[in-house]
């Protein structure tokens, strides 16, 4: 039996900010251009993939984040079982999309680690390391962006008021966490 290890060990609390990893979450990278691609996705997971840049769409079980005109990330809203890594939805979409050449479906569950930031100081933290302009973002629930934080590529999703999810490549996650903790300690 193989055990599950996540790169980030503990939850950290600071004045006005809490930092924690949420795992395991299923994550799929979806790519496609055609109408059929969009409708097929829609039919199978009843989410309409957002076409507007820097936005996201959510259903009861999944959230779809816009990454580029032909690329989205689908994230499960709730954590999945650590005991196995068979994801029904992945199989389903792979058969409906990849197999039929409508686009591509790729499991990126462990490609990206999701770090949740909550509290009123989220954007003070981000402003110490990201060139992105959060002035509008911070007031728009559901907004998302890909940018740099401490020179690391991140996907940032504003999932609810005073809560933001950071997606970062796993091999960078411990470094980013260390940076976040350093910066947060001075907020």
């Amino acid at each position, binding site marked *: *039996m*193989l*055990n*599950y*290890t*996540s*790169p980030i060990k503990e939850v950290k609390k600071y004045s006005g900010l809490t930092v924690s990893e949420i*795992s*395991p979450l299923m994550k799929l*990278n979806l*790519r*496609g251009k055609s109408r059929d691609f969009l409708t097929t996705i829609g039919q199978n997971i009843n989410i309409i993939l957002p076409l507007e840049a820097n936005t996201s769409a959510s259903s009861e079980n999944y959230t779809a984040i816009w990454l580029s005109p*032909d690329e989205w990330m689908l994230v499960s809203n709730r954590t999945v079982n*650590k*005991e*196995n*890594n*068979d994801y029904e939805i992945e199989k389903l979409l792979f058969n409906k999309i*990849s*197999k039929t*050449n409508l*686009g*591509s*479906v*790729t*499991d*990126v*569950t*462990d*490609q*990206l680690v999701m770090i949740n930031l909550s509290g009123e100081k989220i954007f003070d933290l981000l*402003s*110490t*390391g*990201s*060139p*992105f*302009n*959060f*002035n509008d973002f911070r007031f728009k629930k559901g907004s998302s962006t890909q940018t740099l934080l*401490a*020179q*690391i590529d991140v996907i940032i999703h504003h999932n609810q008021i005073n809560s933001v999810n950071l997606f970062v*490549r*796993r*091999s*960078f996650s*411990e*470094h980013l966490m*260390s*940076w976040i903790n*350093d*910066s947060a300690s*001075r907020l």
Partner: protein
Amino acid sequence: MSQNLRVKSSNFIDETSRISFKFNGKTYYGFKGDTLASALLANDIHLVGRSFKYHRPRGIMTSGSEEPNAIVQVGNDKAITEPNVRATEVEIYNGLEAKSQNCWPSVNFDIGGINNFLSPLLPAGFYYKTFMWPASFWEKYEIAIRHSAGLGRSPTKPDTDIYEHRYIHCDVLVIGAGISGIMAAKTATKNNLNTLLLDEKNELGGMTIYQNSEKFKIDNKISSEWLNDEIEELNKLDNLEIKTRTSVAAYHGYNYLLARENLTDHLSKDEKENKVRQRLLKIRAKKVIVATGSLERPLVFNNNDRPGIMLSSAVKKYADYYGVICGKNNIFFTNNDTAYESAISLLKKGINVHCIIDIRENSNSSIVKEAQDLGLKIYWSHTIVDTHGYKRLKQISIMELSKDGQSFANSNKIVLDCDCLGMSGGWTPAVHLFTQSGGKLKFREKDQVFIPNKYQSEQVSIGSCNGDFELDEIIKNSSDILKDFLKIEKTGFDNINVETSKETSKKNIWLLPSDKIVGKTKPFVDYQNDATAKDIKLALREGFRSIEHVKRYTTTGMGTDQGKLGNMHALGIIADTTGVKMGEVGTTTFRPPYTPLTFGTIVGRNVGEYFDIFRRTPMNDWHINNNAEFENVGQWKRAWYYPRGNETMYEAVQRESKATRESAGILDASTLGKIDIQGSDASEFLNRVYTNAWSKLGIGKCRYGLMLNEDGMVYDDGVTTRLGENHYIMTTTTGGAANVMGKLEDYLQTEWPELDVYLTSVTDHFATATIGGPNSKKILNKLIPDLDLSDENFPHMSFKEEKIGKINCRIMRISFTGELSYEINIQASYGKSLWEQCMDAGKEFNITPYGTETMHLLRAEKGFIIVGQDTDGTMTPIDLQMDWVVSKKKYDFIGKRSLYRSDTMREDRKQMVGLLTNDPNTVLEEGAQIISELNQTPVKMLGHVTSSYFSPNLGKSIALAVVKGGKNMMGKKLFIPMEDKTINVTVVDPIFLDKENKKLNA
């Protein structure tokens, strides 16, 4: 004697809190709110430093960031001592320690002072003309020169302070919180624009905030009171952020500005504790309003640099703001009304002002009248021809100017006593930031100033930095400009009633005449660098005409004050001497930063562990716990080798290699780049990016691929596996992963948009454990008992989708060592556990973890290349003797055409070969050069050793090398010339071990 030079009248100094500090080892007292400069002056200390070249005694000249003379070393702790700090900018705190710079043994007695007497031998650029004999002796002279140059001393221990960055995006940035800046900030904020207001001082209000003259009224209030009320209102507004002690350093294109926020330099040691020292603000503003004010000009006359000679506005500020008397017997020297304001201010405080020397014939402005009414003596159309007193001004000599101002009306010389001279040569708009942003200036004849003309970006200048000097103009013009710039109807300052004293006459002489010939005088233009008017004239005489030439030849404007005071005079003197119009001489370019910017601030937290990213594999903790040494590969830390006990690297690698070939080894290969490729054109895509053919690769099969640049040189390599009809997983080198991904996306998006292919990086999604060696099959069998590992079911270069327990994984049977080996790819979260289970399962076979060094050795035994080690961007696949991987049939692939150029087809190119040393125990040095004939000159180098190891499995030293024409040299004897010896080698086939690949199917 301390504090006897205070006048009780300042609202800005807290006389109830006394602060003690040290200057040159002696303890002094000042008050909260004092700068080091004001506190020293209050203690009657004018002599603060020594000049750069002549080591002349220098005092405090200004009250701001333009100070050229009073620069000191602050602190004597080796880690946090700071050189070249302006005494006028240091806010004193308990425990502050400062000392004079560039003097030895002391500022009072400085050996370097002899330079002042040698000065006739040290004209501008003297060093270009001498120190050339004897030849090659320059370094000796240089030692002396270097020691007398330099100002303060660098710290010698690492900084203990913390610096930070902050990105700010605002609608409006207002730079400068003087009267016009305050107006701008209020107006912008009231129009619902989120606004940022910055000022380099610790208080808002600029010069107006201590302007207490009845002559200047706004809305029937004394200007300082009016401004006070405005500021109070300002502090109530939200969506306005105000930052003091914050100086804008650079104004880049697209309204991107850098500002330094100073957070703790004004605090005592214990107040500083764990606080961020300075923060670099990276500001992106939609609109920028520059309100940086203006700088008072000195006057250029003989010996205008003595301690006690100051700017008239500084004398006023020290009195009005700090309540400090700069001199007991003051004289002012001016070409405009400013000095009168200062004089009156002093008189009203009961401070003695002896007289005013004015180069103008007369003036009937109300402020001049007021001065006369106060009984102040004025010497009209007079100038100072010399000053006296070495360490402190004692006397000045004045003479009456002729009509044209170039000589004298008569030969009468009057000598006047004074210990403080306040001079005013008019004002220079602070256009530095404006020009940094790319703005163009225009010259205004009437008062000889450069003012903003053409704007590069969404910005505007208001107030005196825009050339408005009179109070009423400042308020009216600023208001009008704001309306236009912010596109609003009114500002709230539209028709306020303003009373002011208008200047009625102006006169400017850049270089005031002396009764001595210029050659005998020292009229300083750049105080810090000791550049005088005569130096500028010498430069012009020697043919240096452009301002940039003069500047570089005389070093004018090259000091730490960046010539804020002197640059205009340099231009003026050039214009006058060459007869060119001032506007046509052009200005020197103002280069960022406006005021010097601490390295630590620019770097922020990108120090130590945050200098660069540190990528970890899922098994990283295991490696650490098992004593691994690490190697930097790109941003990754890879396990390099696993020393046991006190093994050396060599010993560890020998053991790891042997164990792997004899039984089993395990390698963490998680860092290899992995790209998931899907789409109906996936195979065609691979055909175009790799040198070999892919269409016929069976599903479930793996193939090695080589990637070239368009120039035909090897770029990257790796194994790609066909997972399905239109589904591949590509692996790349660790270092090349990101570049390969980028390059492939580039081709897909820009050259081949017609291809239906999607790429997704999955490098981090998988952890990869490679188990290799004769017993690897047995180990894998223990992990997955029901997997048929027979060559029939799972042959070399094939792949299986399997489960370990309930967890899906991908297993490739591929080998980079020549051993039977399996690469297990599993979801990263299970990687560490997988590794541990492999170790358990392998225990009975003495499974040995090995790192990159052993991996390199094992592959070298098999003659496999490592891109980047055995190639250097100049090797084609043919050079590498890898013709087998280059398809002759394919019509095209990236880089194919370049393989058919005259040079790339040459037979005698450097080619990959193996080398064996005649003495099997001699291991060649990687990078060693190779020759075919001894003692020839010039030496003809054939190539170099790219990889070299002692192979424990072959019991001899082996090496890979690139050699000119190596292909046809099999068996040839060559030489490796080292410093101390020559090593004999023989060219052999690069595959040293198991040519028949028996081990792969063992």
